[in-house]
């Protein structure tokens, strides 16, 4: 049986090894090579650049905010979907954005968030502001764009978790005198934490590594790790710095995965 499993997974493993693991390995090796000598010079050089630390902190900050907001929005949505009779329709609507090209979706935000876009039109008509507000090319714009991009993943993950929850636990909590907030915090949330952790992993790592959305909605003044990597590799041709940033991004993703995986194991044990 084990041999059969190896046989069927072998082609996929070969593909992953050649086109994923091998390139990553070469990048990792090259990150320790500076002008034909080996060492940590490239890492010291990158970490000593203020632009890198700023991009790193900004990336972590924005990814954390997006993950938190995704959880906040996804919970009520997932709960409604699970309880709805039109579950399939609602799931389709959630998945639909995933079928649209990310660039096209981000371009739509350029129109919505522009000075004469939908948001400013509403604000001006309500009298909340006398002049259009600068929304594009700010951190909130990037957060909104990333949230729209990755929210479906959180919703799907929580839907799966809530579906596996016993159907009558909420009713039981209400019957014991808990209100809605208490029921959520003390019953629903603990039981769905595994889904939250899984969804959080997807959203956080996706936000950390996204390029198109930060580049288009953040502009060139708000550097994140992905846009800094693009600049180092394709603008300045500083390959040694670019390999270091690439390695750091991979390590970050692996670390987050391990942290969240640890939490998932704790939940299930």
């Amino acid at each position, binding site marked *: 049986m084990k041999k059969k499993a190896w046989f069927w997974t072998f082609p996929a493993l070969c593909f992953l090894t050649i086109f994923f693991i091998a390139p990553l390995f070469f990048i990792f090796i090259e990150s320790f090579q500076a002008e034909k000598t080996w060492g940590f010079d490239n890492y010291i050089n990158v970490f000593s*650049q*203020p*632009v890198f630390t*700023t991009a790193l902190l900004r990336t972590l900050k924005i990814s954390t905010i997006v993950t938190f907001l995704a959880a906040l929005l996804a919970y009520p949505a997932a709960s409604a979907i699970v309880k709805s009779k039109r579950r399939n329709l609602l799931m389709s609507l959630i998945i639909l954005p995933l079928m649209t090209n990310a660039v096209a979706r981000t371009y739509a935000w*350029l*129109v919505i968030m*522009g*000075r*004469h876009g939908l948001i400013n039109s509403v604000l001006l008509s309500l009298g909340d502001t006398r002049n259009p507000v*600068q929304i*594009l*090319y700010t951190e909130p714009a990037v957060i909104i764009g990333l949230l729209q991009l990755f929210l479906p993943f959180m919703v799907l993950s929580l839907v799966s978790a809530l579906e596996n929850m016993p159907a009558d636990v909420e009713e039981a909590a209400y019957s014991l005198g808990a209100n809605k907030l208490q029921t959520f915090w003390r019953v629903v949330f603990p039981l769905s934490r595994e889904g939250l952790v899984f969804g959080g992993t997807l959203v956080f790592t996706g936000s950390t590594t996204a390029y198109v959305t930060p580049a288009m909605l953040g*502009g*060139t*003044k708000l*550097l994140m790790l992905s846009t800094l990597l693009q*600049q180092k*590799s*394709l*603008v*300045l*041709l500083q390959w040694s710095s670019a390999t270091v940033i690439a390695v750091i991004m991979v390590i970050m993703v692996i670390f987050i995965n391990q942290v969240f995986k640890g939490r998932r194991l704790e939940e299930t044990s």
Partner: protein
Amino acid sequence: MKKIISVVLLIIMLGILVLAQGETNAAVPSKPDKLVVSWWGFNLDLLDKNIAEPFEQKYGIKVEWDVGDNVARLARLVVRKDKPVVDVVGFTPTFAYRAIQEGVLQPYRPERIPNLAYIYDWAQDPLSGHYVVAYTVQCMGIYYRTDKIEPPVTSWKDFWRPELSGYLTWPEMNTTYGPALLLMSSKVWGESDRDLDVGWQKLSDIIERAPTLYRRSSEAIMLLQQEEVWLAPMPSFAWGSVEALGLPLARVFPEEGVIGEMSVVGVVNGTPNIYWAEEFINFLLSHEVQMAEALDLVDSPVNTFVDLPADIAAKLVYGEELIDSLVFFDPTYLGENIDEWVEKWDKLKL
């Protein structure tokens, strides 16, 4: 006897003729199926119409464009340095300088480009060493919204007007005009174009006051179109697109001078098609191509024999008065310092 000698002489003469023909054929290498030209993607349809299709018609060689901005194309050339897939490349002088330093360009043979004799002197060998030729001249003017900005914009200094904060944009340092604008800022606010401390201070203000900066002229055009900005420096090759927006925009040649720039073309080092690459460059400088590109408002001519109608000339970098007023900054100085300036620029954005 006389007959025999005549026949022998005839045979010898025929033999010499055949050998000479062979030698002539050997001087012109065989035609490749295609010539790969690394170029900007702006106005690609017009480049096909004015350059690629006529070249193919004349020489039977298809032109394949490898498009992208300077940085991406230079990166690709460097990566494939040992086995280039590109034959001819177009760059700004700053990037051409970097390309020469990276060893991805090789000198052309001036005798293979007779049309050099018909172009401006400063266009013939802008970086020395016969590495590149300027095939077009550009400049950077300013566009601004006449309905939003009063009094009118007349100077580079207008970018620092307090009321325009949040409504202007500026090119990134790693673009065609980024380094030149540093020197122009130094020149207009300081003692000279090398008064860089002053220039950097002023650029720091610009970064603070611009909602975003742009890497490509198409991004700047989009910012104007979406009315995110009302004021932008704009290179001449994008003027046609700006005016097609249909917005109340006016073009300004600032009183301190118009930044002059060229686009240059060179032969990629290691290409097996050197002969045809040089032929392409010569074709690019021909009256036919220079005229066609000018009439379609793609590129301003460097061929001094191109005679344009007044309405077209007004939209291009053309005419003795404008050409003489162009401020060209030393591309070697720009190329030597670009890396350091980009790092410094990034620090200002923090």
